[in-house]
């Protein structure tokens, strides 16, 4: 019970702190902010877990590890979901617009979502996150960006998936 309660409880604590922080002001680098908040609250929570009155205590290293595994899977699952909020998924925007307007032509989609809405902000994100840099007005991949994208290139190759998604 201690593993389940600590894993779930500290995930919830991380989420509450995240809501409070975002209500005050979302950080510029939101994924990093989420990682710090969630894993920071877990670490701090774990220091005091066994002192919380009535909370079932964790005793062995294996129990701490088990609790961490549950917590980390939930926290990372949430953080990866958050990317859909941060970068406003085009698919969800399209579905929302279809529902609101009660049907749309292909041309109306193009009016709603231009290059300025769909592509340019994502290029700015790459610069902000240090995955790309501007060299004499040209966007170029950085070593950090290359390391990051190589994971996806390798993985898509492994699955025999088409080289490029999007």
């Amino acid at each position, binding site marked *: 019970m201690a593993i*389940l309660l600590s894993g779930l409880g500290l995930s919830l604590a991380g989420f509450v702190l995240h809501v409070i922080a975002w209500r005050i002001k979302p950080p510029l680098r939101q994924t990093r902010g989420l990682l710090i908040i969630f894993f920071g609250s877990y670490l701090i929570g774990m220091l005091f877990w066994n002192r919380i009155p009535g909370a079932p205590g964790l005793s062995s290293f294996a129990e701490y590890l088990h609790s961490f595994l549950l917590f980390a899977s939930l926290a990372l699952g949430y953080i990866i979901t958050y990317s859909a909020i941060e970068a406003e998924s085009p698919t969800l925007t399209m579905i929302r617009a279809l529902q609101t307007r009660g049907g749309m032509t292909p041309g109306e989609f193009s009016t709603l979502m231009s290059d300025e809405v769909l592509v340019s902000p994502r290029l700015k994100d790459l610069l902000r996150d240090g995955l790309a840099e501007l060299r004499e007005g040209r966007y170029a991949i950085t070593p950090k960006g290359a390391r990051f994208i190589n994971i996806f290139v390798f993985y898509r190759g492994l699955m025999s998936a088409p080289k490029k998604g999007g």
Partner: protein
Amino acid sequence: METASIISPVAAFVLSIVVQIQTRRTSKGEYFTRSFLAGFGAGLISLSATELGIALKHGPDAFLILANLITYVALCYGYFHFLNLGETGRRIRLLMELREHPEGIAEDGILALYNAKEIIEKRIARLRRKDQIILENGRYFVAKSQVLYMSRILDGLKLVLFGKR
């Protein structure tokens, strides 16, 4: 018992990845969702078998079984989003284009390779393939509700986080 119980969801997750990759390879890179579901199902069977074995040997612990089930589902959920990112992520696609042009590309050049038109067309094709939208008299309409529900969940989350949608 403790070690077996920790390994159980991780081993099931690893199995689900292996089955997912193999299924996708067999379909020559097609079957994005089906390969994920095949992996998820295989992992779930493995998890159930391991948890049953642990319960028979040490006695059932419903809280541990629930913790492992949540861990497994959360790991698979995160993995699905990782796969989806490679499939649909715009930043990923842009980085792939930049990777092929290490000398750099101007924004106009990038837009010639990847633009709003392609993004919209690909999404319309995916949504139609999954019967989420239908085309009637030259207009698209929402047909099924799964993506719509997902959109409402994210709208709700935005409301909680930012106080607005």
